[in-house]
C-alpha cells in the first residue's frame, strides 16, 4: 500500500542486540540504518532518511541521553525511542523529560517496540 518502507535508525553498541533489532524491524517492513555509537549517528550520511531513532542509553562515548539533548538543541524533529538494560529512576525520568515516544527496558516484547515506532512515525509527515 505504501510506496517505500519508512526508515528507522538504531543506535546500539552491542552488535548482536543491534542485529536482532534490525531483523525485527525488517520483518515488520521497516528499513534500518545501524550505528554503533552516538558519534557515528551524528556523523551519518546527509542522505540518511531515518524518520525515528531507536536509541540505547548506555553507549561508549556520548550517551543516548546526551545525543537526545543535542538533537533537540539542533532543532531535529526526529522522534526517539529509548531502550536500556539498566534500571535507574533518574535515568528514566530524565529520558521522559528529554522527550521520547517510549522507554523500553531490555529485554522487551517486540510488540512494544513496533507500537512505539508506529506511534513515532505517525507523527512524522509521511515521505
Amino acid at each position: 500500500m505504501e510506496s517505500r518502507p519508512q526508515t528507522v535508525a538504531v543506535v546500539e553498541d552491542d552488535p548482536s542486540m543491534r542485529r536482532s533489532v534490525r531483523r525485527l524491524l525488517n520483518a515488520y517492513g521497516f528499513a534500518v540504518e545501524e550505528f554503533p555509537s552516538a558519534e557515528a549517528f551524528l556523523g551519518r550520511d546527509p542522505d540518511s532518511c531515518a524518520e525515528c531513532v531507536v536509541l540505547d542509553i548506555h553507549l561508549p562515548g556520548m550517551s543516548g541521553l546526551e545525543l537526545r539533548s543535542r538533537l533537540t538543541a539542533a532543532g531535529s524533529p526526529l522522534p526517539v525511542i529509548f531502550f536500556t538494560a539498566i534500571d535507574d529512576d533518574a535515568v528514566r525520568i530524565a529520558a521522559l523529560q528529554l522527550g521520547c515516544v517510549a522507554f523500553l527496558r531490555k529485554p522487551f516484547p517486540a510488540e512494544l517496540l513496533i507500537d512505539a515506532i508506529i506511534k513515532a512515525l505517525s507523527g512524522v509527515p509521511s515521505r
Partner: protein
Amino acid sequence: MARDFEAPSRRPIRGPVRVFWISLLAILAAVSAGLAEIVDLVPRVLILYPYDERIPATTIAGESARNRLLEATAGKIELFSEFLDLSRFPENVHVDRMARYLAEKYVDHRPDLVIALGEEATSFIATNRKTIAPHAKIVFCGFSGATAASLNLPDDVVGAFSEFDITKTFEMAIRLQPNARQLVVLGGSAKFDQAWIADARQNLAGLTGNIETTYLTGLSIDEFIERAAGLSEDVILLVLTVFVDSTGRNFIPQDAFEKISVTAGAPTYGPYSTYIGHGAVGGNTVTFESVGTTVANLAVDALAEKPVSNVDVPQTYVADARQLQRWGLAEVDLPSGTVVSFKEKSLWEEYWAEITTIIAFVAAQSFVIAALLFERGRRAAVELTARGRLLEVIHLNQSATAGALSASIAHELNQPLGAIRNNAEAAEFMLNRDKPDLKLIKQILVDIRDDDKRAGDIIQRLRGLLKKRSEIDWQEFDINDVVKSALQILHSEAERRGVAVDCRPTARQLPVRADRVHIQQVILNIATNAMDAMLDSAPAQRRLLLLTDLTESSKAAVSISDTGTGIPGDQLGRVFDTFFTTKSNGTGLGLTIARAIVETYGGKIWADNLPQGGAVVSFVLPLVKV
C-alpha cells in the same frame, strides 16, 4: 523541578489518574441503618488516561489508584477507563470527536466521579464535563500546582499535585545535622542538571538562615569528587543530578552520586530513592505509586461527600541506616514516616560475632595443626573441623561478592536475553508469512544459539561464584585459567566503574592443587579491593593489572596491582587483619579470608605499595610437580 508527569517535550508523558468511587454503603451503614438502600448504589468512576494504555508513568499511577479504590470500597465500585490517545491524535477534531463519543457512550451510565490523569486529560474533562459527566466530581493528578494554576480550572475541580520539593530534603538534612554551618549544593552541566540547580537556588534561598550556601556546578567529575572529599562533617552536601560534567562526560546520576558520596567528607543527600544504597544518607522524593494512591484518596473522600481540596502528593522521606551510622547521625532525628532501608543487619553484621569466632578459631586451629604436624593420627580430625568452618566463611564471602556484582551481572545478562527475544520474535513473524526467508531464519537461529551460550556462560560463572562446598574439591588446574575466569566475572563491573583491566599471564602453565572456586574467590577479593581503592583516581588512570609468574623457588605467583591511593605505610602489616578496613563500605573481611584460603593451600600472601603509586597484593601457591 523534575515533576514526574510533566515532560516539557513535544511528546510529554503525563500522569495517569484513576478515578474511583467509594462505596457509601459501609460508611452510611455504620451511621444509620435507615439509609441502607443508598448503600446499594455502587459508585461509578471513570478514569481518564491522556494517552494510550502503554505509558509506564500513567500505568503505574493508575494501577496504584485502582488498587487503592478497590481496597477502600471493598470492591464495591464500578471502574471505567478511557484512553484519550492525545499524543497520537492531538488535533482539535479528535478532541471533539472523543468528547461526543464519551457523551454518547455514558448516556445511561453517567459517572459519579472522574479521575483525570495528567494535564491534558484534566483540561479535556474540565471543558467537556457538561456533556460527558454532568453531575460528576472531578479530581486530577500528575502535575504541579503551578501548572494547575495556568489551566484556570473551575473551583470544584481539585487535584493531587506532584512537587519534587528540594526544601524537604534540606529539612531532613538539617534535622540530622542541626549544627551544620554550610550547605553545598552540587549539580552537573546538563540542561536537566541545571534546571535542578535553578530550582534549588530559588527554593532554598529563604530557608538556609545562617548557613552559608555554596553551589558547586560547572566542574568535572574529578573536581566534584575532590571538592566533596575536602568538606568537613559539619557540612550538608546535597547532590541533585550529574548527567554530564563540565568535560562533557556522561553519567548515570546514581553512579555519579556514588562516586562523589563514597569519599565525601560530609554527609550526602539527594532527591531520588535510587540514590539510597549508593551513599545517600537520605532525601525526599515523589513516586508514581504515591501519585495514584493520593488521587484515589481524594476520590474516596469526594465520593463520601466530604469536602475535598487540592493536596500535594506526599513526598516520601527515604534514608539509609548504614549511612546514618557512618556519619554518627541519629535515626530518631529523621522526619517521622521516613522509610529507612538497610536497617536489617547485613549478613556480615548479623554474624560478625560468629565469623570472628570462626576466624579466630580457624587461626587457632591452624596453629594447632602446625603443632601437630607430625602427629598424623590426630591431625586429620583437627584439620577437618577447621576446614568445615573455613568453608562456611568462604561461602558467606562468595555470596557477598555475588550480591555486590548483581547489578552489573543483570545488565550483562539483559543484552543476550534481549537479543534472543528480538530474534525469536522476528523469526516467528517471518514464519507466519507466505515465503519465509529460510536462509535468514537459519542465521537468526545461529545468533540465538550464540547469545544463549553467552547468557549461559554468565550464569555458569555466577553459579561457580555461589557454589557451596561441604568439603574441599581438590583439583589440579592452571592458575592462569582461574585468573581469566575471575576476570570474566569482574569485567562488566570494571567497565561500569571505568577501570581498565590488563591481564598478563605467563605463557607456560602454572599447575597448582587446590579448590578452584576458593582460589577464584581470593582473586576476586583482592581485585575488588583494588577497584575500590581506585574510586578517587581520575578515570583515565584507573588500571587494574593482573600478573602471574613462576618464582625462583618454583611457586606459582599471582600479583594484582592498582593505581589507587596505596596503603598508608603504617597499615601495611594490618591489611589482612580481621575487620581492618579503610573503606566506608568495606566489611574488612575480604583480605582476611583471602589469607585464610591461601594458607590453607600452603601458600603465602602479602601486600606492598608501588613506587609509582597504588598498591599490589601478591600470593604464591606451591606448584604441582609434573
